[in-house]
C-alpha cells in the first residue's frame, strides 16, 4: 500500500465555510529564485516584456544587473538564454507559456534541449489561469509540447509551496527544465517545505475505489472530488503528478494495481499531456484498468475566467467526482 504524505489543506477549510487560503504560483517561483540567487551569482533572469506580468520583477528589482529584458522578442529571449548558459550561467526565462513554447519552440528545442543547456523555462498563465485573456494568452498545449522535447524535464506543481520546491529542484537539476505555473491565486494545499523530488509523485490521499492522478491546479480539484466521493462511501486515491517527465511510472502502476479505476485530470488538452503519459505507461505495461482522461477536449476554450472555464469543462470537484462515478459504474 502506497503511503500518503501530510499536507496543509484540511477538511475544515473545505467544509466549514472557512476561507481557503490562496496564493499565486507565479509569485512562488520568483520569490524562491530571489532567495537562491543571493548565494548563487550564476542565476540570471530573462523576460520578453513580461517581467512584471510573470512577477520575474521580484528578481529584477533585487538583481537588476543579472536581469535582461529583451523586449517583445521571444526567439531572441531563448537564444540569449542559451548563450548565457554557454558561459556558465543558469538562465531562468519567464514569459507566458504560450509564447515561450510556441513562438520560440524551435529555439527551445534546438538551442536549449539539443545541447542540453542549463536553462530553466518558466511558463506562466498555464491552463485556464489567464482565461479572460482568451486563446491567444492562455495555453492548454504547453505540457505536451514540452514533453516531446528530448532532454527536457517537465514540471507542473500544484500550489504555492510546491512551486517553491519545484523551483529549487529545477535549479539543482542540470539541464533544461520547463516549469508551468498559473496566473491567479490558487488554493494552498501543501505546507511550506513540502516533499518534492523530480520524477516522484506525491500521494496525498489513500484510496482503493478510484485513483485521481492530477497535476497543477487540478490537484486541489481532485482533493475536492475525493471528499465528494467519500460522502458516497467511495475512497479515492489522490496523486499529485507534479512531474510529467520523467513520469513516475511506479506511482501509475501501483494506482492501477491498488484501485479499480484511474482518472487523469489536467488543465490542458487531453492530447499529449498527463493523460497521454499515463495511458502510455498503462498500455505498455499491459495493464487493463478502467481509465479516462479529463482535461480540455481537442478544442480551443470558450470565453471566460478560470473558474468559469473549469465549470464549463467539468474540471472541478463535482465534475471530477461525477466522471469517477460514471467510470466505476460503467460496464
Amino acid at each position, binding site marked *: 500500500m502506497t503511503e500518503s504524505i501530510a499536507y496543509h489543506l484540511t477538511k475544515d477549510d473545505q467544509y466549514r465555510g472557512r476561507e481557503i487560503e490562496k496564493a499565486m504560483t507565479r509569485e512562488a517561483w520568483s520569490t524562491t529564485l530571489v532567495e537562491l540567487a543571493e548565494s548563487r551569482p550564476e542565476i540570471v533572469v530573462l523576460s520578453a516584456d513580461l517581467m512584471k506580468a510573470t512577477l520575474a520583477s521580484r528578481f529584477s528589482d533585487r538583481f537588476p544587473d543579472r536581469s535582461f529584458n529583451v523586449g517583445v522578442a521571444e526567439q531572441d529571449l531563448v*537564444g540569449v538564454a542559451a548563450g548565457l548558459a554557454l558561459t556558465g550561467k543558469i538562465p531562468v526565462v519567464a514569459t507566458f507559456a504560450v509564447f515561450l513554447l510556441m513562438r520560440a519552440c524551435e529555439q527551445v528545442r534546438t538551442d536549449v534541449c539539443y545541447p*542540453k543547456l542549463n536553462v530553466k523555462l518558466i511558463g506562466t498563465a498555464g491552463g485556464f489561469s489567464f482565461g479572460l485573456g482568451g486563446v491567444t494568452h492562455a495555453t492548454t498545449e504547453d505540457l505536451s509540447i514540452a514533453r516531446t522535447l528530448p532532454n527536457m524535464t517537465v514540471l507542473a506543481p500544484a500550489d504555492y509551496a510546491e512551486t517553491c520546491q519545484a523551483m529549487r529542484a529545477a535549479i539543482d537539476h542540470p539541464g533544461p527544465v520547463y516549469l508551468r505555473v498559473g496566473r491567479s491565486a490558487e488554493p494552498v494545499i501543501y505546507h511550506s517545505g513540502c516533499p518534492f523530488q523530480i520524477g516522484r509523485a506525491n500521494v496525498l490521499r489513500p484510496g482503493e475505489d478510484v485513483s485521481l492522478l492530477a497535476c497543477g491546479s487540478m490537484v486541489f480539484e481532485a482533493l475536492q472530488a475525493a471528499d465528494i466521493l467519500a460522502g458516497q462511501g467511495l475512497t479515492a486515491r489522490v496523486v499529485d503528478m507534479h512531474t510529467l517527465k520523467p513520469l513516475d511510472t511506479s506511482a501509475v502502476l501501483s494506482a492501477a494495481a491498488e484501485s479499480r479505476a484511474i482518472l487523469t485530470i489536467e488543465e490542458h488538452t487531453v492530447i499529449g499531456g498527463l493523460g497521454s503519459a499515463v495511458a502510455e505507461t498503462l498500455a505498455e505495461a499491459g495493464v487493463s484498468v478502467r481509465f479516462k482522461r479529463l482535461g480540455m477536449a481537442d478544442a480551443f476554450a470558450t470565453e471566460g475566467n478560470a473558474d468559469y472555464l473549469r465549470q464549463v469543462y467539468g474540471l472541478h470537484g463535482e465534475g471530477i467526482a461525477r466522471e469517477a462515478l460514471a467510470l466505476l459504474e460503467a460496464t
Partner: protein
Amino acid sequence: MSSQADSDVDPQVVRGLALKANDLRRELVTMFGMAGGGHYGGSLSAAEIIAVLYFDVLRLRPQEPDWPARDRFILSKGHAAPALYAALCDRGFFPRQVLNHFEEPGNPLTMHPNMRKVPGVDASTGSMGHGLPIGVGMCLGARLDGLDFRTYVLMGDGETQEGSVWEAVMCAAHYRLDNLVAIVDRNCLSCDGVIADLQRQEGFAARWEAFGWTVREVDGHSVGDLARALRSAPYQPGRPSVLIAHTVKGKGISFMENAPGYHRANISPEQTQRALAEVAAQRKALR
C-alpha cells in the same frame, strides 16, 4: 576594450592566410567528395573568412577547448561546417583521422556542427537565425564575468531574412555589446537562387546602421582586408560591429562560382578531381 588602429597586415601573414584559405578549400572539396556531395557554395564563399578567424584573429587554446577566456565563434550558417572542421583540425582540436570520416554514420562531423560532439565548436547550429541571439547571450555572460573575450558570429546573407536575426541585432545594440562581431557572408545567393529575386534586401548595410551597429564592408576573399577589418573591431566603443564580407558563392571552383545550383549539390568524382586541380593551381599561384 581597446580598438586596434587599422594597420597594414604583414605581407608574409597575408600569404600565409591565403594558403590557409586554400587549404580549407582543398579539405572541404575532399570531404564533400567523400560524402558524395555537400553545401559547396556557402562553404567556399566563407573559406577566407574562416581562415582569417582561425589563423589570425581568434584567441584559442586547442588543447583546452573549453578555456573560459577563449574567443567564441558561432558558425550560424552551420551548413558551411566542413570549412570549420578543416580549420579546427588544422589548429589541433582533433586528429586528422576524424576529418577523413565526414558525414559517415556515427562520425561526429555531421552536415551541421554539434558542439557536444566536436571539440572547438562553440554552438550547435544549422537552423538559420539562431546564432546571433546565442552570441548576444555569450557577450552578456562575458560582461557579467568581467572577461574580455569576443564573440564572432558568421551568418549568410540569406539567413538575415530571419526575423530572429533582427531581434538579436536590436538587443545587441541595446546592451551596447562591443564584444560582439557579426560577419555576413554576402554572396547574394541562397537555397532557391538569387536572393534579390526571392526577397530584396535594399540598403543592407544601412539596415544594420539604423539599428545602432557600426558597419564595415570588405572584399570577403581578400585575407589582408579581412584581417585588417577583424583586427580593428570593435569599430566604435559601446556598439556592436558587423563586417559585411562581399563574396562569391562557390568561390575558387570555376563551374560553381555564382552558380545557383551549387548551394548544395552532388558532383561526380571527375568533377571533384577537376575542382581539386583548380584549387591546386590557385595554391601554385600563391607561391
